[in-house]
């Protein structure tokens, strides 16, 4: 951690997000009368800090339910963080107050399911133009041309503006969703598993579209995914998340070549591989056990129950994200007994 760190465009500082369901009237009365009431708080994100440099693509990887989508939504300003702060160029994403509102348009989001993220009753043209109109990025008279420009940029015909979402396929809808996000002229794009619900052949098209847009617009991206292949192809840096915490973060090439956290290692090993020119069946090693419940996360290191290297210390003492052998690359790991870094 020396002065070599360049200024970060996006700063995520100790962000936590907990969900506590509202108690029913009956439960509240019971609590008032002194009976113990169980509050089921979900610890989705637990004190996560990281930064995004201008122009980089950071992959956020983890199992289903590890909190990566929630973290993405906090950064995109959809959920206010329970603690901590997400900011872009020093400006906090969400205001304070009882009903916090998003204050910036510089971070936009693309969602996983393009069938759910487009309002079925609104024409594509209005879907794309309503944000820019509301924020004065374009005048009403210029709006059709503006919409046409972004439709072209994502590879859709200009006539698409007059249609409704149900007239499009999944891949086309995802292009519309991307156009909607980009029409706000953001600096940062949060992509929450944007290709996970698409056919494999369509996935490649959308990934290539992201690569092209990134090159042309100089976008900074947080790319949330559980697909290691996609992340390896697209991302400069990778953050591995486990049960609400980041366990390892660093340059993509380094993480894939020499993971240092046992969980990252296990995640990489659990990808089935096809090896040509060998009669041996290459078996992959699935990770033992299940993700613990975020309702009651285990003490100490969250991974200790499934970790082959766990010792007594791991059960009581939560490790901090710290630099390893070569700090110059910013490769950091949160483990008491990190792997040596041999692939």
């Amino acid at each position, binding site marked *: 951690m020396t002065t070599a760190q360049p200024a970060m465009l996006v700063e995520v500082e100790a962000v936590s997000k907990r969900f506590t369901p*509202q108690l029913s009237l009956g439960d509240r009365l019971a609590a008032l009368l002194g009976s113990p009431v169980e509050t089921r708080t979900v610890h989705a994100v637990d004190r996560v800090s990281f930064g995004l440099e201008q122009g980089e693509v950071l992959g956020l990887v983890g199992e289903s339910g590890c909190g990566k989508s929630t973290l993405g*939504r906090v950064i*995109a*300003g*959809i959920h206010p963080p329970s603690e901590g702060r997400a900011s872009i160029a020093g400006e906090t994403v969400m205001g304070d107050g*009882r*009903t916090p*509102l*998003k204050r910036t*348009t510089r*971070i*936009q*989001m693309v*969602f*996983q*399911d393009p069938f*759910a*993220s*487009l*309002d*079925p*009753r*609104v024409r594509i043209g209005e879907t794309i133009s*309503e*944000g820019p109109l*509301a*924020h004065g990025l374009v005048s009403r008279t210029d709006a059709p041309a503006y919409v046409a420009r972004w439709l072209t940029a994502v590879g859709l015909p200009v*006539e698409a503006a*007059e*249609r409704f979402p149900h*007239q499009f396929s999944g891949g086309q809808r995802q292009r519309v*969703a991307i156009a*909607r996000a980009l029409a*706000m002229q953001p600096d940062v794009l949060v992509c929450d598993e944007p290709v996970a619900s698409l056919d494999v052949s369509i996935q490649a098209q959308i990934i290539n579209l992201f690569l092209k847009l990134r090159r042309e617009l100089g976008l900074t991206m947080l790319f949330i995914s559980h697909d290691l292949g996609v992340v390896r192809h697209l991302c400069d840096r990778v953050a591995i998340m486990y049960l609400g915490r980041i366990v390892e973060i660093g340059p993509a090439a380094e993480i894939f070549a020499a993971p240092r956290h046992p969980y990252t290692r296990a995640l990489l090993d659990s990808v089935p591989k096809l090896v040509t020119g060998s009669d041996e069946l290459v078996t992959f090693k699935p990770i033992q056990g299940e993700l613990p419940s975020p309702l009651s996360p285990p003490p100490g290191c969250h991974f200790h129950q499934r970790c082959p290297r766990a010792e007594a210390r791991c059960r009581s003492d939560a490790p901090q994200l710290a630099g390893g052998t070569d700090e110059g690359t910013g490769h950091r790991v949160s483990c008491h007994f990190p792997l040596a870094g041999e692939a």
Partner: protein
Amino acid sequence: MTEASTPLARFWDEFRHNTVAVIALGVVIAISIMAIAAPLISPQNPYDLANLVLMDARRPPGFVGSKGFTHWLGTDAQGRDLLSAILYGLRISIQIGLIAGAIAFALGATLGAFAAFFGGRIEALIMRVIDLQLSFPAILLALVLAALLGQGKWPLIAALVTAQYAYFARTAHGAASAERSKDYVDAALSTPLAARRVVFRHILPNCLPPLIVVATVQVANSIALEATLSFLGLGLPVTEPSLGMLIANGFQYMLSGRYWISIYPGVALIVLIVAINLVGDQVRDQLNPRLRR
């Protein structure tokens, strides 16, 4: 653009398979047209006291009055031609039902959707008030209000709206809560768009199907409620009799054999309400995915 049929055309395609609903819809439309055209087709203006001949009062159906035309449904105690009075009465009943229904729809849907959108204390406050109100019988509430506000069209509408907006609010709240958790709302919030726009442009249009069903039923209900209030003498002034008041006026003559003064307005009212409800049933069947065949 590839599909030639609009959603409305597809809706009608399914609707016309239910013969009863089609007939009911025909009846509703026919009654509505007759009510709208009442000044043109009715033989007499029942509101113009100069037109009424007291000599012709309480005559049975088919009586040829002193003005030279046949009273097909007889006359009431003031010598009004009942057919004309029913047509004019329907006109008022439908008008009040629609206006009260529309206001209750707008008010209730807005309240319910905003409650669902904001959640937390705002939601708890709005929904508890509505729960409280739903625990009173609507007729009781309307009676109290009609008595407090006095007679006339607008006090009556106010009473009907108060008695009914809660049904819209609860339906809108349920539907909007489901929509609130969908990604397109999150997408609108991440843009960010103002709460007003998210609710009115995105959430409410997607809540319309259940609200339309409630609206059909509630228009029928407010017509019935209006008739009840008028029957009890709390509705419209005597000079503009609605169906409820016609029934009430004839009530005292029922046992003396002059059944027509009460029965015919009653029949008109029942046919209208039953027809609206039949249409509403079919609309509900079509809009509720769980009832789909």
